[in-house]
């Protein structure tokens, strides 16, 4: 069974340019998460989807970040315009869904973004 797929794996852009990341979760997983991970730190949640609904986007910087999961399957995270401080690894994760005790999440390999 395929895991969480992310693309691209690496992206280098100049500041003020737009960038988009794509994620395809594990088949059957209703919940999808986007995380940001800075070097030497743990992942920090940006947004969480239950099917196509964004149920928690409180940590998403909405002035420049946007996300969508139109059909409740794959998802896109966009930054426009990118800033130097956005350089990080963007991780996508998925889980079966709900707010159960276990909340076990499966992560993709991430997209490493470098903003010059």
């Amino acid at each position, binding site marked *: 069974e395929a895991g*969480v797929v992310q693309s691209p794996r690496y992206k280098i852009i100049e500041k003020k340019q737009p960038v988009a990341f794509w994620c395809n979760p594990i088949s059957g997983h209703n919940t999808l998460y986007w995380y940001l991970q800075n070097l*030497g*730190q*743990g*992942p*920090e*949640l940006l947004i*969480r989807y239950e099917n196509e609904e964004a149920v*928690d986007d409180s940590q998403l910087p909405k002035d420049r970040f946007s996300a969508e999961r139109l059909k409740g399957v794959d998802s896109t995270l966009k930054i426009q315009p990118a800033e130097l401080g956005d350089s990080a690894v963007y*991780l996508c*994760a998925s889980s079966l869904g709900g*707010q159960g*005790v*276990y*909340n*076990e*999440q*499966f*992560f*993709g*390999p*991430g997209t*490493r973004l470098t903003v010059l």
Partner: protein
Amino acid sequence: TQLLEQSPQFLSIQEGENLTVYCNSSSVFSSLQWYRQEPGEGPVLLVTVVTGGEVKKLKRLTFQFGDARKDSSLHITAAQPGDTGLYLCAGAPVDDYKLSFGAGTTVTVRA
């Protein structure tokens, strides 16, 4: 301020030695998970502990959940170079579904 504090931040040991990584909080968690992350990859779930005092073993790895469900430890016996990686603990507080991650412990096992 991190909800989960991990220690030590870095750990470098020789192959064959034992090591312990700690994850502490003042909050009570409904469950706590341990992940290992290798460079250029996403975190991979190792174990989930749910019951206070629970001990789980995964080959040479032993995970313990504190009696009060506020802390956890990961012990590796006879470490091997393949154990090298960033070890992350993550927990969902009892009053919040959201999974919070610690900053991680970078473990290096030298051959």
